[in-house]
């Protein structure tokens, strides 16, 4: 098992060491990645052609992905300590040259089209593998996402699972103030997707929900995961500035104490 606490702790440690931001966005998906990498994604390893695919479409939270891959044993501790260093392959956004990263991302709106292609490929190759794609709520501002939403539904891609990280924030404000998304579940449903609303921090519940998809509608599935930006760190919770800011030493000490509640 991989825990949201372990992912969150690595996010804090590496953000502090590298003195970079995007901390709140990474913390909001720690539970989702713990569920995926700890209990959902199947395959013999990162090079198995028949492994489940995962696309971190909100690439700016790559640190949480690196943490999950490290906890799976695919990124060494030594490599983790190069996060954002000169010459490192571990940048703020992930590159597919890194074992375990199926697709490079960083430009919002790219992940879902890639995932639709991956899911189509699995079907054409008569494979049971699935494709999971994690998008941010603000990413639903991108038109290219909705192009792919339509195609996935038209193609009845039931081997495709999208997870929307509904933390309610984007770079310059709250999503409700920047560009209204709600009612987002109804929008995905209207586009022909099978919609589940879940708690994005309940790892066991996420695993159960994803397991239940296998017997649900013959349609692509979307989990609208209600999350908290900066989850686990009280002073980051729903604070816009923690989209970009790095932590001070004092911030870091406070954050480490706070996330103990995630254990």
């Amino acid at each position, binding site marked *: 098992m991989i825990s949201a606490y372990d992912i969150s702790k690595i996010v804090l440690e590496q953000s502090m060491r590298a003195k970079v931001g995007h901390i709140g966005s990474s913390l909001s998906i720690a539970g989702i990645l713990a569920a995926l990498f700890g209990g959902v994604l199947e395959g013999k390893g990162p090079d198995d052609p028949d492994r489940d695919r995962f696309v971190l479409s909100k690439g700016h939270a790559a640190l949480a992905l690196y943490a999950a891959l490290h906890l799976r044993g695919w990124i060494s501790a030594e490599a983790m300590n190069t996060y954002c260093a000169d010459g490192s392959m571990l940048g703020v956004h992930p590159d597919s040259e890194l074992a375990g990263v199926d697709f*490079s991302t*960083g430009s919002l709106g790219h992940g879902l089209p890639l995932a*639709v*292609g991956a899911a189509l*490929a699995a079907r*054409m190759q008569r494979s049971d593998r699935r494709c999971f794609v994690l998008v941010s709520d603000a990413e639903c501002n991108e038109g*290219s996402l909705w*192009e*792919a939403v*339509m195609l996935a539904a038209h193609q009845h891609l039931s081997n495709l699972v999208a997870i929307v990280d509904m933390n309610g924030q984007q770079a310059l404000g709250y999503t409700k103030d920047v560009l209204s998304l709600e009612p987002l579940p109804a929008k995905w449903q209207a586009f022909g997707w099978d919609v589940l609303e879940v708690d994005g921090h309940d790892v066991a519940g996420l695993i159960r929900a994803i397991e239940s998809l296998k017997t649900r509608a013959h349609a692509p599935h979307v989990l609208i995961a209600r999350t908290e930006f900066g989850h686990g760190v009280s002073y980051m919770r729903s604070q816009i500035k923690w989209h970009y800011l790095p932590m001070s030493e004092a911030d870091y000490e406070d954050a480490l104490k706070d996330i103990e509640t995630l254990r």
Partner: protein
Amino acid sequence: MRGAFVRGLVDIAREDERVVLLTADLGFMALEPFAEAYPERFLNVGVAEQDMVGVACGLAEAGFLPFCYSIATFASMRGYEFIRSAAVLHRLPIRVVGVGGGFEYGPAGASHHGLEDIGLMRLQPQICLIAPADYSQTLSAVKATWDMPGPVYYRIGKDDRRKVPGLDGHFELGKPDVLGDGADLLLLSTGAVSVEAAGAVQKLAAKGVRTTLAIVSTLNPSPGADLLALLGDFPVAITVEAHRVSGGLGSLVCEVIAENRLRCQAVRVGVSGPPTAVTGSEAYLLRRHGLDRDSLTTTALNVLAGTYA
């Protein structure tokens, strides 16, 4: 030429089940032979070029060879960031097929005139960039390059009747085809407008001007070494492309001349100046931009006489 492309693709798909054809809802009276032969490998994604390229990358990651078909403007520009950040950065073997570059969709208006695709693709050194001159060369080019590693951009003409005399369907990746050995002047052309360059060569011959014509159907991998050898032999070279004068063949020729300190004057014939609302047939628009055989002949004579402005 798009007929040649589809014909070639149908043959290739018979041999290789990795070949998939995607369209963003274009290709009426063109793609049917493929769609009918391989319905399970034909996908109309709807009017969604970004999605088409992204989906192609997802397919390519799993081992498919997806061809993405649209009109050159939409194929090259609407999904450009996907071409760059998904296909190029992942080194995935997708093929983007831009049909009717230049003014082949003449009366459709400026939105349909593909004048920037070659320049945009030249900016990505990992993209193999191919612009065949006529029907037979299109067929040869597709059959020679369909399974290359990494992404490929094809600028394919719309008109299947094009034929450049003497080219005889020859295509070799990265190599210009040199027609004739006239010592007075070098013309270089790329893509479907090459028939006009070839027509100008004949008109110039009638006036006693001996011309060499280089058909540059591969722009990347760079044909630079062959161009260097050619350009060194001529005091003046005229580039002909249904494209903006910057970024395409004319720019490539200028780079070779400048970087090698050649004593060769480059004259770039293409589209310059701001866009206008003026539209019309392809023949009219080529004439308007000096790209038809008569205008090219006049330009060549003026250049040789030292009266070209």
